């Protein structure tokens, strides 16, 4: 606006002037041009007011271009990149920001022992445990629980396991199947005296604890080692067999999702059976396990029956190779894509095929065995159900065995460890999953940071920065509560936020523009505009310098 005003003011009085005044006479030409010598008729000499006006015009154009055009161009062509805390993000992904430590508190209940004896035993056991432990990420911390508590299975997040010491005949140990309790009986003479520095009972308790948590420890250390965590955190010893079984476990289990969709399908090659009591069967044989898993996962369920379904392999005897192509992926409708949750498929195929497994797999028995089901990693289970030809309805009792198989496969597909009592397996699963989510969220942060560095032309909206900061607060909280109850919840939120930040839909890194493209875009635009502007300015500067020179000459003449 400021640029236009002087122009308008300066111009308006001149608008009428050319008409009213005769051109040449009005101009007080300082030194009249010597046009006498040339034959061509020269244009009339410009009035100073015209010259002034032209200067204003050119100046105002330049002012508009510089003050308005350039900022607008700059504003509209720069890529908005929110500030990301890149170093912190990389620290998370390198495992420097968080030491994944699982301090598991284990309380000892020794109602029959004196306070003093119990303390001593605890100290010795802790020593023995620390000697056995070679992986710093996974601590077992012992504590003495007040003897008043009778036996309520307290699941207040704090303690992972309770050891009940009961006097008895010999040293034995049993895991309570209903609650995270390890019962250990001991003969009365095995209580260590206050002065002794070692005790067989303490060593026994320590080794029992260690074997109880061995799988969890192995899985977590495997998780950490396969991710980018500094090597001093890594577990020292893992036998190849253990590593293999662990990698098998990771191959088998699905990526964590808060909700899984379970699809139960009945496939039959003929017209029968055409219905099944799946609802009752699920309620009866699967629901309890789903309920138990509910703090960690939600499940949605759908079922379907497909008649005249031909399997991908028609052989009567199925070898292991056949099994992988048994699913007729082209024709069986197996991906309902209902909702946003990943699907786990459980298929009952009505047929009496036999599965022939290679004899090397189970050397102790004969080559055939009565296997009827197989598990497809990260996908689901197929169960072959032989039925009489005239069955029209599959009863819930018939479905018992398939569903029990599905249930145990579901546990392994969700990544539940194999050993230990069920409550322990579940709490271990929660801990494994929180570590898993923590690592995944951290690595997503790292990917995002590296991406932001590697692709300077990608835009980063404010939402991404928000997501990153949310992720980091939740990661911090998850990291502080890793062994506890909130750890999983925080890790879950952190992972979801990290995914959302990474997959921000406006962050499509289109497109790579080579410099030739930029020139091709700007030349047609800048050519017609830029050249008159530049030439105008040059002419004006030239004229100004000329006038200045002339004025100087005139001054010099006057002085003479």
């Amino acid at each position, binding site marked *: 606006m400021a640029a236009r005003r002087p122009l308008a003011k300066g111009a308006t009085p001149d608008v009428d002037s050319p008409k009213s005044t005769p051109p040449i006479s009005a101009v007080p030409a300082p030194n009249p041009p010597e046009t006498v010598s040339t034959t061509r008729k020269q244009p009339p000499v410009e009035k100073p007011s015209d010259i002034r006006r032209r200067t204003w015009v050119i100046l105002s154009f330049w002012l508009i271009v510089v003050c308005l055009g350039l900022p607008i161009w700059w504003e509209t062509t720069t890529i908005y990149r929110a500030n990301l805390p890149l170093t912190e993000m990389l620290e998370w992904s390198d495992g420097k920001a968080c030491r994944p430590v699982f301090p598991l508190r284990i309380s000892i209940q020794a109602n029959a022992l004196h306070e003093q004896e119990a303390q001593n035993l605890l100290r010795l056991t802790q020593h023995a445990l620390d000697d056995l432990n070679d992986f710093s990420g996974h601590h077992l911390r012992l504590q003495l629980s007040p003897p008043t508590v009778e036996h309520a299975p307290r699941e207040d997040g704090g303690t992972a396991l309770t050891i009940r010491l009961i006097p008895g005949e010999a040293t034995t140990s049993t895991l309570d199947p209903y609650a995270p309790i390890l019962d250990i009986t001991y003969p009365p003479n095995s209580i260590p005296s206050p002065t002794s520095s070692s005790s067989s009972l303490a060593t026994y308790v320590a080794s029992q604890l260690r074997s109880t948590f061995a799988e969890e420890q192995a899985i977590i250390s495997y998780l950490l080692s396969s991710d980018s965590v500094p090597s001093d955190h890594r577990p020292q010893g893992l036998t190849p067999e253990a590593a293999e079984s662990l990698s098998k476990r990771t191959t088998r289990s699905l990526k964590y999702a808060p909700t899984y969709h379970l699809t139960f399908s009945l496939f039959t090659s003929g017209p029968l059976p055409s219905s099944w009591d799946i609802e009752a069967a699920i309620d009866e044989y699967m629901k309890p396990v789903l309920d138990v898993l509910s703090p960690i996962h939600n499940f949605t369920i759908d079922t379907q029956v497909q008649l005249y379904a031909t399997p991908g392999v028609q052989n009567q005897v199925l070898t292991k190779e056949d099994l992988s192509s048994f699913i007729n992926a082209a024709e069986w409708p197996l991906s309902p894509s209902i909702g946003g949750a990943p699907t786990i498929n459980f298929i009952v195929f009505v047929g009496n095929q036999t599965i022939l497994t290679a004899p090397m797999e189970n050397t102790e028995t004969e080559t055939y065995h009565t296997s009827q089901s197989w598990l497809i990693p990260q996908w689901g289970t197929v169960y072959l159900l032989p039925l009489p030809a005239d069955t029209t309805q599959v009863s819930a009792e018939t479905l018992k065995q398939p569903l029990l198989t599905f249930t145990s496969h579901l546990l392994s597909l969700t990544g539940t460890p194999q050993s230990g009592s069920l409550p322990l397996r579940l709490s271990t699963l929660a801990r494994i999953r929180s570590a898993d989510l923590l690592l995944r969220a951290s690595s997503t942060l790292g990917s995002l940071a590296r991406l932001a560095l590697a692709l300077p032309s990608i835009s980063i909206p404010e939402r991404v920065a928000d997501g990153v900061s949310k992720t980091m607060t939740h990661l911090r909280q998850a990291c502080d509560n890793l062994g506890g109850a909130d750890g999983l919840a925080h890790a879950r939120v952190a992972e979801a936020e990290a995914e959302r930040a990474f997959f921000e839909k406006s962050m*499509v890194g289109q497109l790579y523009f080579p410099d030739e493209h930029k020139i091709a875009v700007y030349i047609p635009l800048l050519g017609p505009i830029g050249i008159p502007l530049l030439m105008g300015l040059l002419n004006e500067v030239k004229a100004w310098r000329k006038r200045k020179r002339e004025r100087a000459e005139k001054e010099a003449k006057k002085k003479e």
Partner: protein
Amino acid sequence: MKLSSVLRLPALLAAALVAPALVDAEHTSNWAVLVCTSRFWFNYRHLANVLSIYRTVKRLGIPDSQIILMLPDDMACNPRNAFPGTVYSNADRAVDLYGDNIEVDYRGYEVTVENFIRLLTDRVPEEMPRSKRLLTDDRSNILVYMTGHGGNEFLKFQDAEEIGAFDLADAFEQMWEKKRYHEILFMIDTCQANTMYTKLYSPNIIATGSSKLDQSSYSHHADNDIGVAVIDRYTYYNLEFLETEVRDTNSKKTIGDLFDSYTYEKIHSHAGTRYDLFRGGAEAARSRLVTDFFGNVQNVEVDATRNATFEEEMLSLSRTIAALRQKADEEESAKKNVTSDAGHAPTTQKKIEFAKPLTDENWWTKKMYSAAALAGCAFLWGMGSYLEAPR
């Protein structure tokens, strides 16, 4: 229990042995991204190329949910098609590629560079259905097959825009960063196709293309009744190999065998391959099975004979635990109800809510902007009339 006993073994020496075991993980799912990028009837062969690859991967066991098929035009329903509802890739017209069981994920004008990059990087809007997304993870092998009209380091989409080799490379890099693939086989059939994969820089990609720089890629033959060429040479000979050598998922033919089958005599252009990105180099890349990318072969686990009692025990166990938990929850909620009834009964208030803008982010800033814009316009108008006024 077996595991724990194994772990108790003295295992200090084994650490060195673990490393290779960790690296060499198997894939658990196979995905295929099949992209045709050209419209119009005379590009019939490009759609036929893609559809024949689609049939092949489907035959080898990749389900529709894991195939992303992009078709920019509908040849089957084109009015110039003498065989309505069908697409053939061979003049013998033995196999109708369109068939009655086909799932096209991106169709017509949905096939754009942006959508393709969104698909690869999974930066899709939330309302996008799962079937149109590439939901891969670090255990997924992906076959990316593209065909259309290309040039030096670009591939034309729909005669309107193009994807550059750099964009493609960046998209793959983003996938790698986010662990969205295990291994990729990138296959492209365009003119100067080999230039398209020269810019890739992410690991674990095997790339192959139909023709090198400044070389055209040719069609194989035309069908006189359809009136246009029906398939490209490079795709034709790929299919020939896949159909004669890889009859089912148990085939042990390797990627090396497939690549060795390309000759200049057959394809009339120099098909190229790129192994250097692959972990283990050419040797490892060539030893991958064809079905690792074109099929869906998983290492299944057959159940050993088991005793049902174990499972039943688990079932009854979880039943008790669930019951216990429910009881605890009920007790807790009962307790809560008592306290909340006592404490919060009178505090309920009625509050009339004002109409709120749907998104309240920057609401005031936006208002300010529009107010400023309005004021500016008014000022301009006023200035104009002031200056225009005769004096």
